[in-house]
């Protein structure tokens, strides 16, 4: 009985405490808010200028963020949703929960990108990562990869955003011939994992010659571990892009504060945090440039990206095609 009273007292006090310093609630994925992710530094930087508190609410990955938002619906307590990628933005937009952006910050993305609801904060190219001490002549295209005896481990598009990215990549590069590419790749695939970390873990254990990851993955090993043995393979077809975006919810009672946060996210201070915390390219290159080590990364000749509308329209069929071909 006593505990119930205490709990009630606590619940009634909590909103009062919030009323004093506004709390900006940011729904994002786990690794963004993790202590080694960009979250803490960005929160600290923003809190210094907003007289508010940033509270991260997390879900497993971009897809989990979206499904959590769909579960919460208009009743969501979040002000900002951060960490969806362009494969998901159309579905997110269709919920009608997002407010238009107050301003469009300039960006340095390799492809033109603007969206009325979503502001990009970082981006990367998908790539197959390999150990350059073991593999000296990496394949230069999907066709070369398929023709080789190299073993790869990939993520499942039904449970992981990089997995979905790969399916989109093949679709963007090969269109109607994508099924044939998957058929040819089938004997190279060691296994398909439910998540990026399982795939990357298997690769590091030596279970595969290459793993589907990002062109920026080698930068982590180089900068954080002083290990130059990982490289990403550049493919002639071009590399598919992942653009990560943030948006504000129409239901937020702190529209101005949310706008202010999105502006901060695009600022030099926040963007400079991204490369060595999220291991992605910042949407706007900071004035001081990219950290040392990033210059060693491959620069794809061609960037591939389906528009959000194309991605949304083609996703289901592409995943079904992938599943059908690889199930045989």
């Amino acid at each position, binding site marked *: 009985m006593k505990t119930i009273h205490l709990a009630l007292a606590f619940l009634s006090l909590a909103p009062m405490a919030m009323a004093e310093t506004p709390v900006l609630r940011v729904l994002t994925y786990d690794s963004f808010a993790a202590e080694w992710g960009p979250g803490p530094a960005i929160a600290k930087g923003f809190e210094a200028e907003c007289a508010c508190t940033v509270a991260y609410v997390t879900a497993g990955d971009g897809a989990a963020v*979206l499904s959590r938002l769909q579960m919460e619906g208009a*009743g969501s307590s979040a002000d900002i949703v951060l960490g969806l990628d362009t494969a998901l933005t159309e579905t997110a937009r269709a919920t009608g929960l997002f407010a238009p952006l107050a301003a469009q910050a300039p960006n340095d993305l390799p492809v033109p990108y603007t969206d009325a609801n979503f502001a990009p904060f970082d981006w990367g190219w998908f790539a197959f990562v390999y150990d350059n001490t073991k593999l000296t002549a990496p394949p230069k295209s999907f066709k070369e990869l398929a023709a080789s005896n190299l073993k790869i481990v990939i993520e499942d598009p039904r449970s992981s955003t990089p997995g*979905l990215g790969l399916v989109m990549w093949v679709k963007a590069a090969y269109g109607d011939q994508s099924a044939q590419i998957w058929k040819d790749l089938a004997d190279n695939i060691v296994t*398909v994992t439910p998540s990026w*970390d399982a795939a*990357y873990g*298997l690769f590091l254990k030596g*279970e595969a010659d290459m793993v589907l990851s990002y062109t920026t993955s080698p930068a982590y090993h180089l900068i954080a571990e002083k290990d130059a043995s990982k490289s990403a393979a550049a493919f002639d077809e071009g590399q598919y892009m992942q653009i990560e975006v943030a948006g504000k919810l129409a239901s937020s009672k702190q529209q101005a504060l949310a706008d202010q946060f999105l502006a901060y996210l695009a600022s030099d201070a926040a963007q400079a945090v991204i490369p060595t915390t999220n291991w992605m390219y910042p949407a706007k290159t900071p004035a001081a440039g990219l950290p040392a080590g990033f210059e060693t990364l491959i620069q794809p000749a061609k960037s591939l990206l389906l528009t959000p509308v194309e991605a949304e329209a083609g996703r289901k069929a592409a995943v079904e095609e992938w599943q059908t071909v690889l199930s045989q």
Partner: protein
Amino acid sequence: MANRFVAISAWALASGIAALVLGTALALAVQAKGVALHPADWAALRFTLMQAALSTLLSCLLAMPVARALARTRFAGRRALIVLMGAPFLLPVIVAVLGLVSLYGRNGVLNQTLAALGLPTVTIYGLHGVVLAHVFFNLPLATRMLLNGWQSIPAERFRLAQTLGLPSTFRHIELPMLAAVLPGVALAIFLVCLTSFVVALTLGGGPAATTLELAIYQALRFDFDPGHAALLAGVQFAVCAVAVTVAARFTLPEGLGLGLDRAQAGQKAHWVDAPVLALAAVFLILPLVAVVADGAPAVLQLPAMVWQAALRSALMAMAAAVLSVTAALVLVQAKVVGAAWVEAAAMLPLATSGLVLGTGLFLLTRSFVQPETIALPVTVLVNALMALPFLFRLLLPQARDLHRNYDRLAQTLGLSGAARLRWLTLPRLVRPLGMGAGLAAALSMGDLGVVALFAGHDQATLPLVVQRLSGAYRMDQAAAAALVLVASSFALFALCDIGGRRAAP
């Protein structure tokens, strides 16, 4: 009086369980847009059934010689071996998978050895890999249950067979026991394998190895189609119901195996026992060694938050254990005085999908509270619920004995309510209660489940931290944190189990 109290509590509990399990599924079902299964769902159902059936068959077949060998041999360290062999059942799935890959993977110990000897290498990826992993998880469970069966055969019966000069003790004595015990063992393993997801996909080698649970995950995550998830959960339910019905036609086993120190006095050891036990020990313990070897180097460099998460997880695991043990005790008491329906309620959580349960709870509670404010209590509740079927089975045989032997004496003495609990029930059941609490704590410690759905940023449990570390390239630290997780799970289990044994009269 006492009986009525137990009956009312049991009713309330059973209704609560049914409401949770069915209510959460219903919360998803109301959002259904259609009720058709896709062709891919049928494929998933077929694969789910096939891998579960194969895993069950192989686990049971292999467990028989192992349990028999354990039953009839005595050697130093026998009990330690039994305890250690139980460890795989307590391992978090992804940790165990990586441990297996260290041994049997393309770059694993086995293939390196084969290659060094100039022999062709083997692959773990495919249906056989899935079955291998499931056997690794469930062989200990099957062995323990069967060992219990062997130990329940009175030694006199073997002596009688000898005096009568019966040609085969197996056919006349052991086979009837197996016929009675095996269906229940098979059922338990089948149900565990039915909801497999990470093992099936990671080791399955491709989307052909899609289980219903993965289809549920997809429906919730990428398609956001809760109705379809509920439909799939319903299919999973139906499969469970059929399995339970089929198994119920045979006698069910009575527990996971206590009384481990009674060697089967009536049977002599056979030369085959030693190699069988050695093989089983190597098969079950080597992956654990790999987990330790992978994790040990980085343990000292783990960030402080890992230890905080470990403490949080341990506290939650203990809370879940207390909750689950209490619930199991009440239900078991009701069952022994004749309430048959109690058993159905106690087994119900085995049939549900953790993801459906979590999502349903989220949908049901979101209008009242912030998800993260109830993340930890909900996780404790769900973990307690998931451990309940195992605890119920564990307690049942001892509770039955207790009732049969001492209920009338207690009644003539007027021993009821709290006094009965203190002076009779707890002291008599403290061993299975300790083991059950340990099991619940360990299972709950390793569960990623619903906390990932509800937790705010600052409420990470240890499994969540492992996932976050490995999601940020920190594989070494993730392996170390996983080792901490395994060690804590095992320590919690051992603490409760030994505590129960020590406290036993």
